[in-house]
């Protein structure tokens, strides 16, 4: 009896694996097509004209900072250095208990001013508003602690421009990030309501930007190298394809451009979720599709920023555990969209894909591991069968990863050849070196979701080399 049950479970897990692999492979093909189109489009675009034209739509860029004294100055400097005709930078200090506000005050020569802002969203109390004597387009809002969503809502109250760009405080930006993000919006602002673009990850984002394209390094730390691959895969194999299929369901918090009136219409960022980025994307899709409105949320292939990667196992698990929780919260919250034709590809492909590959995946993976182990122990499967199955999974996964690396390299030609060789060789080991950590983090996240835990568990910033 137990053998029959185990056989069924193992076969079920393998069928699940096959199904998700087929889905991922399909996305890789769609992603390849979309990447090629976007690459050509980007190369034939006229960034020099966009950068100087008064018809390029102004953008309010905002960043929430909670205990970011180590990184905030470099992040704000990279935002102020953006090559864009007109943009303002709004930094919201979310009641930091460290010296974040003091760092900002001295670095940017801030002066307090009373600024009367719109109260579109209720937020925690604003203590003071500062303007910079040296950067007229910088506004710093010091407020009581209320979380990231609350801070971004505060920034929305202050924002003056029609498009807003929410970014993370631990991220460094390509000088052309906004131009790359807005180049398509400028062509069709009525339909394009949201944009994100390709991000990379590094232990020290500033240092990674110091090297010119083609000479940039991929972090030597194994965890960070695998996170780099994870990001490349997530963008080139998934989000680019989702964008093509019109179910771009996650604009990451590190770089998300929205039309401000859309955010106002859907009620801004929601503090009741663990994290706000994926939830707001789901909410906007839900609203626009329910009302039958024509819109697009895009993911582009241009690399716009490098975000800080946790370099220790503990921090990595804490981050991924939180990501898993917010995915669970969001996908379950918007369950009315699952398999619902009213929500078009979002309901028929996007939400079910999330359900299959993110929400229930940790349970399936755990079940597969346990049942395979037990099946070997009971002699139902030969150890060779397990070895071949694991190797097949590892190389299938590596093949998908190499596709993403290929698209990334075709797009950016950013990294050194020897670093590319290294990540290509690391790819097959992903299954045994990196995935178990991800599985642990995802199981932990799922467990915390079931317990209703909504804490942020912010990871400690890496120690960076002095500038």
């Amino acid at each position, binding site marked *: 009896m137990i053998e029959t049950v185990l056989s069924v479970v193992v076969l079920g897990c393998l069928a699940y694996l096959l199904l998700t692999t087929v889905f991922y492979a399909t996305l890789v093909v769609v992603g390849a097509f979309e990447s090629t189109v976007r690459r050509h489009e980007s190369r034939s675009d006229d960034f020099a004209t966009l950068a100087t034209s008064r018809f390029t739509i102004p953008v309010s860029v905002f960043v929430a900072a909670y205990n970011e004294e180590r990184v905030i100055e470099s992040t704000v400097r990279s935002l102020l250095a953006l090559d864009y005709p007109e943009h303002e930078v709004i930094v919201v200090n979310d009641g930091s208990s460290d010296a974040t506000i003091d760092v900002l005050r001295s670095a940017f020569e801030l002066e307090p001013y*009373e600024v009367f802002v719109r109260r579109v969203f209720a937020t925690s109390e604003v203590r003071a508003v500062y303007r910079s004597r040296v950067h007229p387009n910088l506004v710093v809002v010091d407020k009581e602690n209320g979380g990231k969503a609350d801070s971004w809502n505060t920034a929305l109250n202050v924002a003056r421009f029609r498009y807003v760009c929410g970014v993370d405080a631990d991220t460094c930006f390509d000088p052309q990030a906004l131009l790359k993000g807005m180049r398509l919006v400028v062509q069709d602002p009525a339909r394009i309501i949201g944009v994100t673009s390709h991000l990379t990850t590094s232990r020290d984002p500033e240092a990674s930007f110091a090297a010119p394209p083609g000479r940039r390094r991929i972090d030597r730390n194994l965890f960070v190298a695998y996170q780099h691959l994870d990001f490349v895969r997530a963008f080139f194999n998934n989000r680019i394809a989702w964008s093509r299929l019109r179910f771009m369901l996650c604009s990451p918090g590190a770089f998300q451009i929205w039309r401000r009136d859309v955010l106002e219409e859907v009620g801004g960022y929601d503090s009741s979720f663990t994290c706000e980025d994926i939830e707001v994307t789901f909410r906007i899709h839900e609203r626009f599709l329910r009302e039958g409105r024509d819109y697009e949320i895009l993911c582009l292939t241009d690399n716009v920023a490098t975000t800080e990667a946790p370099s220790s196992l503990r921090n990595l698990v804490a981050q991924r555990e939180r990501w898993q929780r917010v995915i669970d919260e969001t996908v379950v919250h918007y369950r009315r969209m699952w398999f619902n034709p009213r929500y078009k590809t979002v309901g028929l492909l996007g939400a079910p894909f999330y359900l299959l590959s993110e929400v229930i995946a940790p349970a399936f993976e755990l079940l597969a591991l346990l049942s395979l182990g037990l099946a070997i*122990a009971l002699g139902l499967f030969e150890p060779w069968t397990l070895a071949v199955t694991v190797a097949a999974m590892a190389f299938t996964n590596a093949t998908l990863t190499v596709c993403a690396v290929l698209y990334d390299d075709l797009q950016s*030609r950013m990294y050194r050849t020897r670093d590319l060789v290294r990540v290509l060789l690391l790819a097959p080991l992903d299954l045994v070196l990196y995935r178990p950590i991800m599985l642990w983090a995802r199981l932990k996240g799922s467990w915390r979701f079931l317990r209703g835990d909504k804490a942020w568990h912010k990871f400690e910033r890496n120690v960076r080399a002095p500038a």
Partner: protein
Amino acid sequence: MLPHVARIPRSRDATGEVSDDHVRVDALVFRVGVVVLALSLSAWTLLSLVVLVGRVRYERRRPAPSSRKIRAREAERLVRRVSRRPRTEWGRWRRIAALTRLEQAHHPAVPRLIRSVLADPDPRIATSAIRTLGDIGDEWAIDLLIRALHKGIGPRSRVAAELERLAPAPGEKLLPLLRDWNPAVRFWGATLLGPYPDLGESTLIALTWDSDPNVRAAAVETLGSRSGDGVGAATLARLGDSEWFVRVHAARAAGQVLGAAAAPTIAQHLSEERWWVRTAAKDALRGLSTDAVPSLLAMLTHEDPFARNGAAEVLQDIGFVDFLALDDPSSPLLERIYAAGGERLRDATEQRIADLDEREVRVA
């Protein structure tokens, strides 16, 4: 085998053999595994080679100069490629790349070819052709861009951006756009006349009464960079427009055209219903600096709290509050401003003053 599971009775222990079903499952999984492994290993190896070979080839390739001559055979091939209407997306981009190459080489067939590319139903392809026209910048390119703007080929904002960077400037060629039946064309015509202060003034003034509010807004915005009584009167008249975004442009334009004379009227718009009109009025008054002070002081006792705190905010931003706080901290006027702006305005001022060198402020 794990020691604790060795004790579990198994079919193999009882019969000496694993049942046929289980053997079949094991064999199936093994076979599928081997096939998938063989395929994936080959794919991984092949794709890795593609990545590396492609990269090495890219690095060895010389960077292409922005302008270069092409051989006749290559030009012929490129002309053929641009002339064909490709069916695939890939073919369309190859077509654009070929056109760019011919344009860089100043090939004589470009004017003819670009017309056919502009007719491509895909707006992205048309946009690329528009960019190429901006690079060319000759008289015929200007004509084609204006035609594109007229007919709505590609996004009009991109056509406008290209037109604005051209030398020779399109100038008078824009005037017919102001009289077009299509409001979108009139809008762009009015907007593009911004850098030409001597052109089309009377038509622009007439357009401030256009039936389309976007055209009215564009006309008022363009008039904001001009001067004269007629222009001033037209911008002031639009401060009473029924559409809020026209009033936004009118507030800014009136400040620029009429200066201090417009301050009392603009200050009244600090009590506007629409937030963005109030913001535009504040911007305009900030732009007038000390010329706006009398009008702003008059608003400090306005019945509308938005008007009061808006006036106090502008007085703070133009440095009037800091000046008063340094010159006479007990001034009743300063107290009136604090009363209008609230305690936080007082706190912010006091903190700024504490940080400032008094002499620096007096010089300013």
